[in-house]
């Protein structure tokens, strides 16, 4: 694939400005990393991701647990959640700009809002998947309501919760890049791509896209695989 790309560049069918060679992209990547532009952008994006994702995780897990355990909350919230869930988070972006202005706050809020539904749905499913036999045997052994929650329901739901967090983080990452393009934040990887468009800096764009891909992959592979190994896999609830 790299060879095909390079051949297309050398054939000269496309102007080099729009279709840079891999060497140029690599050069640009090194230059941007050394002068710190890429690091600052990546740090700004990761900061937004972290805050947005934490908000979504806390809100999503709490609402999901409540929906799983309390019947009337489930009845009340399920229609709303299932309606909001398939709406692409990015569609809210212009609305959030209108409500909260430009900058970090609406970007973080939007990422949180878009991600929380994935976490809610998965946590709820997780609580529902806890076998009734487990709960009943805990009750039979005289466990209190709180002990059942902490020792049976939470660990039982954890595989699903982790799946929800993992999917949520991936979708937060996808959305955040686009959000940064729409919200004209001052720093960030999405902004770097969008800003480069004005100056036809395709090499910068491709280098940034590569960084986005790599960070996304690291988040997925490193963070969650480790978390899963330390919890659900170790408890024998899931094979790695």
């Amino acid at each position, binding site marked *: 694939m790299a060879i095909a790309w390079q051949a297309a560049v050398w054939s000269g069918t496309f102007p080099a400005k729009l279709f840079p060679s891999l060497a140029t992209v690599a050069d640009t990547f090194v230059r941007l990393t050394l002068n710190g532009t890429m690091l600052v952008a990546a740090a700004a994006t990761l900061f937004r991701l972290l805050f947005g994702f934490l908000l979504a995780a806390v809100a999503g897990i709490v609402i999901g647990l409540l929906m799983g355990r309390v019947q009337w909350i489930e009845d*009340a919230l399920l229609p709303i959640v299932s309606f909001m869930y*398939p709406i692409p988070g990015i*569609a809210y972006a212009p*609305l959030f700009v209108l409500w909260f202005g430009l900058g970090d706050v609406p970007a973080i809020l939007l990422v949180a809002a878009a991600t929380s539904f994935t976490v809610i749905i998965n946590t709820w499913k997780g609580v529902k998947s806890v076998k009734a036999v487990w709960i009943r045997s805990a009750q039979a052994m005289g466990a209190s309501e709180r002990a059942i929650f902490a020792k049976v329901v939470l660990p039982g739901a954890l595989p699903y919760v982790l799946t929800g967090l993992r999917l949520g983080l991936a979708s937060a990452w996808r*959305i955040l890049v*686009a959000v940064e393009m729409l919200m004209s934040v001052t720093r960030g*990887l999405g902004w770097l791509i969008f800003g480069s468009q004005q100056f*036809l800096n395709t090499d910068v764009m491709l280098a940034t896209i590569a960084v986005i891909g790599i960070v*996304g992959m690291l988040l997925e592979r490193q963070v969650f695989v480790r978390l899963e190994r330390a919890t659900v896999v170790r408890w024998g609830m899931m094979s790695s």
Partner: protein
Amino acid sequence: MTVASQQVAAIEPKANATVRSRRRRVVPFVRGAIAIAVLLAAWEYFARSGIFSQAITPPLETIASALIAMVADGSIFKHTLATMLRVAIGLVIALAIAIPLGMLMGRHATWERILRPPLAVLMPIPSLAWVPLVVLWFGIGNVATVLIVVYASTFSLLYNVWMGVKTINSIWVRAAQAMNAERTRLFTHVIWPAALPSIITGIRLAFGRAWIAVIGGELLASPQWGLGKLIFDAKEYLNADVMLAALVVIGVIGLFFERVVFQLLERATVNRWGMANGGQR
């Protein structure tokens, strides 16, 4: 259970059973309806309270009339049609790419070795990150948005087809081979039907991705028509009512596909064939 219904139970146990099962269906519905009503009422109160200008937080009536106006002049249908066409064309192209490649990857180790690295590199890149570059290459319009949809949907499809073919119970393949099935027959009678459930799952996931990508693509690459474009334009003119109306339409379409189209599709295929768990029993 209330005292009254217990008394009824004592007199007519059978009737009570049906009452109870009906209640089990009605109560969640009523609670859901109440929650939606409360949410809408809270919005209405908030919108009319004047904390924010009504241009920014329009009351329900304004949103509804914006929606009705767009239905009346037919513009909402044009926008929806443009968006749906982009999703459909993008998905068809993605299917044409992903099914053959996924089958090859699942059946032949050589192809798997060739295609795995590019898949691993390209899959984690969000499709919307490509939008500015694609716009530079192909200009604003249908080509750019359809390409983004193709990018967004191809990889999850490819992954599912690949995994679906790879995890086919090898006994089925060997049994067919032992009965002297030649390659085309093996493909049409064993591999294709066995991989179909995961292909359908792949299509479902790909639609979700494509749906996000098309709206984002339309927001960023602003072609002439499209639901994303509608929202983007409404922002320029501070028409929060149009934006919210468009969001409602987007939500209804998403829900329709998720709940009706794909559920019917799965019921008619995967579930009917008893393959809901991949045929591994």
